[in-house]
């Protein structure tokens, strides 16, 4: 209850405040009483968001426990015969909406990067002979060997796709995000 010095309008039935029903305290006529928030009510209210956070955390924890964190799946991309030396091909990894580039600058080297330019996500085009990846939108240039930006607007390197070659089959094993 508000402090005792604040006035409480008398109820129409004339009975004292203590005998009035609960709703009269919850919906008081006096603006001073209406603006008053008891410490207990305030703490109860504060528990709402923190309680919601707690429940959310528990839910996230249970969810990750149940599904496990296996990372992106291993996926077959191509065979060594599909890609000639000096050639490149596009594949999608980890989801069908993530285009990636597989480049073979020489016989023993396979490189794979996300094709989305780190500037505004235009697809980068390989120039294997020059050892570069060019973005046609804003003239961004990436180094083919490292995937790092060389010139133009992009400032971050392209995410690298980890590859594994077994029995002539090239598979993607994960995405390595870099800064």
């Amino acid at each position, binding site marked *: 209850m508000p402090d005792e010095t604040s006035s409480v*309008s008398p*109820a*129409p039935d004339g009975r004292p405040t203590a005998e009035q029903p609960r709703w009269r305290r919850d919906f*008081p*006529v*006096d*603006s*001073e009483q*209406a603006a008053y928030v008891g410490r207990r009510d305030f703490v109860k209210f504060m528990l709402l968001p923190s309680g919601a956070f707690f429940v959310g955390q528990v839910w996230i924890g249970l969810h990750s426990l149940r599904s496990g964190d296996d990372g992106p799946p291993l996926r077959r991309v191509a065979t060594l015969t599909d890609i000639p030396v000096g050639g490149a091909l596009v594949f999608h990894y980890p989801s069908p909406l993530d285009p990636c580039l597989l480049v073979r600058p020489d016989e023993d080297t396979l490189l794979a990067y996300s094709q989305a330019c780190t500037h505004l996500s235009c697809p980068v085009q390989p120039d294997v002979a020059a050892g570069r990846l060019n973005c046609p939108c804003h003239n961004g240039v990436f180094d083919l060997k490292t995937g790092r930006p060389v010139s133009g607007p992009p400032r971050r390197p392209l995410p690298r796709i980890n590859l594994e070659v077994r029995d002539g089959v090239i598979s993607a094993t994960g995405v390595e995000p870099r800064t």
Partner: protein
Amino acid sequence: MPVPPDHAFFIDPNRCIGCQACVHACAECDTHKGVSMIHLEYLDRRLSTQTAPVICMHCDSPTCAEVCPADAISKTADGVVQSARKPRCIACNNCVLACPFGVPKMQTEVELMMKCDMCYDRTSAGKKPMCATVCPSQALFFGTRDDVERLRPNSTPVNRFQFGAQEVQTKVYVMVPSAAPPNVLDMNAAMHPGSGTPGIHVNLLDTIQPHSKP
């Protein structure tokens, strides 16, 4: 800042000349420009030119706020019952129907009940309400009780009203003749004189015979 506790509002319908200055002064207020929150009542237009200004009486236990389902009307600590809050008012008309004095008016264009709040912006800053400043006959008087007793020796302020079973005490006073000042004004008896119910004569038409029904 609250309304000065020694100041009160005194209505003296005897002095009202029906000039409507109060109504128009109210309508000119910047906080509700163009809409008057008070009105003028004609007692019996066929028989008399007598009028009475109707401002909010600011009840101690405001019936309008009691019946408001949206909790839109509240009473400040200094006893002023505020007009409905725009975000809360649902234009249900409960207050309009419930107020024994007929004060609240529904502004249907904006779906908001607007009623006299004793010019809270002015009175809480130590000024008089707009209507009391413009009233040429001071039928609406805002000042101390000492002032009103000195200026109106033949009248006595009364702020208790009986409406059937409901007794209402208000912050605003009505001036009644000092000859036999009642403790409580029986409004039903005053509205229906001669019905047998003993009441007091706030009725201003004593010298005029009630018209006979055809």
